[in-house]
């Protein structure tokens, strides 16, 4: 039930945004992520963005995963 999927913000109108999920456009409320900007990826849960995905951290995690796998 706590499923949340990455969605790309295409446009913002007040507290509502249009987001793209693999080519499908959906409405998302930004009430919980007031700082989200167009071009950000958010975690979309039941029509609400519950957090902004941090691309730098995503990169870091991938780097760590590769390092760990090479160390084995």
């Amino acid at each position, binding site marked *: *039930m*706590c499923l*949340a999927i990455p969605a790309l913000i295409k446009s913002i109108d007040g507290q509502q945004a249009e987001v793209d999920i693999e080519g499908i456009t959906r409405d998302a409320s930004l009430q*919980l992520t007031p700082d989200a900007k167009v071009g950000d990826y958010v975690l979309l849960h039941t029509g*609400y963005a*519950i957090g902004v995905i*941090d691309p730098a951290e995503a990169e870091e*995690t991938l780097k760590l995963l590769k390092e760990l796998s090479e160390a*084995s």
Partner: protein
Amino acid sequence: MKFVEEYRDPELGKKLLDMIHERSRKPARLMEFCGGHTVAIFKHGLRQLLPDNIEMLSGPGCPVCVTASDDLDRAIALGHLPDVIITSFGDMVRVPGSRSSLQEARSEGADVRIVYSAQDALAIARDNPEKSVIFIGIGFETTAPTIAASILQAEQEKISNYYVLSLHKVCPPIMKAILDLGEVNLGGIICPGHVSAIIGSHPYQFIADDYKIACAVSGFEPLDILLAVDRLIRQIESGQPTVEIAYRRGVKPEGNVPAIRLMETVFEIGEANWRGIGVVPSSGLQVKSQYEKYDAAKNFKIDPGPTHEPEGCICGSILRGVSTPKDCGLFGGTCTPEHPVGPCMVSSEGSCAAYYHYGDNHG
């Protein structure tokens, strides 16, 4: 899909598993708290792929499953009131209560509508001003802020026929309750990813400090989960439990502060009734008195009648990590996803449904 595909690389996954096999020496029992993790672990067959000394256990992190029968009976009783529309997330309507389910109540004439979002429930209220629209608010900290937002939006738009039956629950206190029961001896906990997107990682610190149990917050892709398992194993092998975030793209240590504020504006901490565990103090969210005009518990008089648990169902002890679905005599025979006896078979992320769909050889 960006931020998903990269974390599914099977080659990388295989290498990580090799590394985990090399590193892991001590026997350890790990609990994945969240039902979403249970599904991911089963779907990718991770239980089988981990070393034999690692035992994986499912926890109580399935909001539909932990909703107590008498709370469900209250929801159904509300549905039978005149001029009421019940709005609910999908799985919830199929869970058998003491006498019927919301779905059966609908076939008896109750107006029960499935919604994807609290926003949809609010839209139904907007479109039906002559009816009372009650949202059955289940879910953890991931979902509760969205329901809080819907109440604030109702206030802003002066929608006066929108109500929430708040059955929301919070995770750290139930983790404590399970550890205090002392029934499961855990070495590590895979902490819920999207609950933590809201509350952050600090609320789990007591688990490492007081119970000496390793903690890692995990995402939901296979590599996320393997990374979390790796973090736990390192903590266990070194004998130094702490709280790590293995899902940094989605979770900050402090969580989502605006969402926490919003949740605290509308809700206050109170007791909650958990299936299989009972009433646990400070583990639920109730609508604050200044928003009580939106509180279904305060605005409607109902008599839900006596509560009965589904006979033969051991969902409660499965949720505590004490039993597995294979211990249930009804599993796969009388109880199937098409004809569920208990909530752990109804919810797509319930343990019984996961065992059923992905085969018991993964157990």
